[in-house]
């Protein structure tokens, strides 16, 4: 089991958001987590990545059998967990190249591999840029500074490609993207799919999922997964919206 989430409960600023979430992800699987605004989707992604200000009050998360919640954010990343941000952060003055070389070498250190020097890293990065069909000047620019919304999301996917994580969590990566950017992001994700790698795609809309075609779809509402199914659930939700589900579970 790649990820095993049991009865996860978490709060932000004393407000209970996750109220007993269960989820299992096996290597090679792609899970989509959908749900109305405020249902706890982004909180779930943030708790998995270890963001400050999110307090886990009950439950457990095992990542490859290890207690994920005990780890610092950097340790989670080194062990192969990757979060693509809803809002990738700008870091003025730090080049993408320095940032990613440092990150790749941190992950390599964890795996007991020697660090890549400037030249080896450059070569490695260029391969990935090609794979994802991105602009070559990406590496020289400051992290996300002056990037359009689409470029920022693509930069996150590029980082994902470089770090070769075991579990990729995409937190509303599709929000604010036009159709072309969406396709590029989706293609990037598809290029990285492998039998060893799991995905959790958190989204509000079905359009990204049409490209990615998840194996499992879950509906999160009021801090719990209230419905699970296959890809067909996406279209069901598209047709009927979340209203039925909200009505069924209101007052719980």
């Amino acid at each position, binding site marked *: 089991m790649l990820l095993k989430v049991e009865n996860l409960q978490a709060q932000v600023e004393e407000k209970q958001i996750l109220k007993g979430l269960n989820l299992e992800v096996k290597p090679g699987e792609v899970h989509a987590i959908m749900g109305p605004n405020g249902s706890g989707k982004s909180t779930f992604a943030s708790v998995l*990545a*270890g*963001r*400050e200000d999110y307090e886990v009050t009950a439950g457990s998360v095992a990542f490859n059998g290890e207690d994920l919640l005990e780890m*610092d*954010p*950097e340790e*989670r*990343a*080194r062990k192969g967990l*990757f*979060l693509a*941000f809803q809002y*990738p*952060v*700008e*870091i*003025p*003055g*730090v080049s993408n190249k*320095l*940032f*990613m070389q*440092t*990150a790749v070498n*941190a*992950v390599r250190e*964890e795996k007991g591999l020697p660090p890549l020097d400037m030249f080896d890293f450059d070569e490695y990065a260029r391969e990935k840029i090609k794979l994802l069909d991105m602009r070559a000047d990406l590496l020289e620019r*400051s*992290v996300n500074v002056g990037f359009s919304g689409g470029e920022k999301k693509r930069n996150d996917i590029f*980082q994902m490609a470089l*770090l070769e994580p075991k579990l990729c969590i995409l937190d509303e990566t599709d929000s604010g993207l036009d159709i072309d950017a969406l396709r590029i992001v989706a293609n990037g994700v598809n290029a990285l799919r492998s039998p060893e790698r799991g995905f959790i795609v958190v989204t509000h809309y079905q359009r990204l999922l049409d490209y990615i075609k998840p194996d499992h779809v879950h509906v999160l509402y009021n801090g719990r997964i209230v419905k699970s199914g296959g890809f067909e659930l996406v279209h069901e939700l598209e047709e009927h919206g979340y209203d039925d589900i909200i009505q069924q579970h209101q007052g719980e």
Partner: protein
Amino acid sequence: MAKKFTPVMQSAMTHYAQLSDDLNKAESPYLTALRQSAKAQFLEQGFPTRRDEDWGYTKLTDFVQTHFRLQGISHLTQADILPFLPSFGATRIVLVDGWFSESLSDDLSALPKGVTIESFEDLQQVPESAVQLQAHQQDVAQEPFAVMNTMLLNDGVVIQIDKHAVLEMPLFVLHVQTQPNHLSNLRNRITVGEYADVTLVEAYVSLSDDLCALTNVVSEIDIASHARVKQVVLQQQNKQSYYFNNQFVYQAEHSGFNTLYAGLGCVTSRHQNHVYMNGEHIETIQNSACYATGAQTVDSRSYTEHNQEHGFSQQLHKYVLDGEAVGVFNGMIKVARAAQKTDGQMDNKNLLLSDSAQMDTKPQLEIYADDVKCSHGSATGQINKEQIFYLQARGIPRPQAVRMITEAFLLEPVEVVSHGAIREWVAQILSQTLRG
């Protein structure tokens, strides 16, 4: 009404006045007169107190406790100064405790064509040269530490760049403090002829970490039309010492002055640019990158006068403050009535790494012309938590993430240095200092 001073301050003033008198014994009546007139002013005005608006945040209460004096000459070897020598090729001038050292400097009689470098001490034997040394006495007399400098005139560097001389090799001036309680009083005079081009790097260092010394510098820099001066001042003295530097810069039409101050050392330091843009189409860039921690106070300020049309000035002053450190910035851009089409930008940005660090900042504009483009701004904050988390989420440990973000912040003003090897050198020193 005469200013009132505390007994401690009064005692320090008397001490420095006596020091001035001691200097007058051997030499030209001209210098004696100069010193004496400065001494009269100094005794009347005294040291600034916290009631002086420009000194409200840079306290001198500790400074006046120590009576710095001229100690004997100490002899250093090449090996002693080796750690302070830069990685780039340069013509080297070394001053030890404020005195020009012939043995540690390059042979100044074999300089490239168009450059003359002399020590102030040599020059003052020749009365008519000495006269040039007070070209801007009126402006100099406005600053308390510059007045003290005049009162205690003894040595410094005099550099003359002939017109059309383009120096490929930067000039590197190293100031080494070696003795406790010593006062280095430096008076520099730099004149750059028309169409000349020179790069000047000054480094202020201490030989050891525990000696407390005072460096008081006044530089007068005259830049003729179409000439370019690029300057880097690295202040890296130990955390016991004091540094005061007043640079008076006079630019003629179509000239360029580009300066970077890196303020890293000293318990109290204050670097001041006074730039007079006295012609049309002048370009002036003044940046600073300051880092202070512990009980340090780092003060950097600029006074920029746009006096003619089509002037361009740009400033970026960045501070990183940790511990209990205090950062002080004060910038004034003054645009005269005649200075239409002025483009003046001044920006101050500060990063506080601890809750007890403090930044006091005051960017100012005073505009008398009606067709200008001027702006000033200041922002002080802590590192964005989201930035740290972003780096952590990619596997970078928190301390390293903080360092990367801080370094990138502080190194931005360094980009103004056009000479690649010098830029690398300064950037590396800044990075090393941040890493502690």
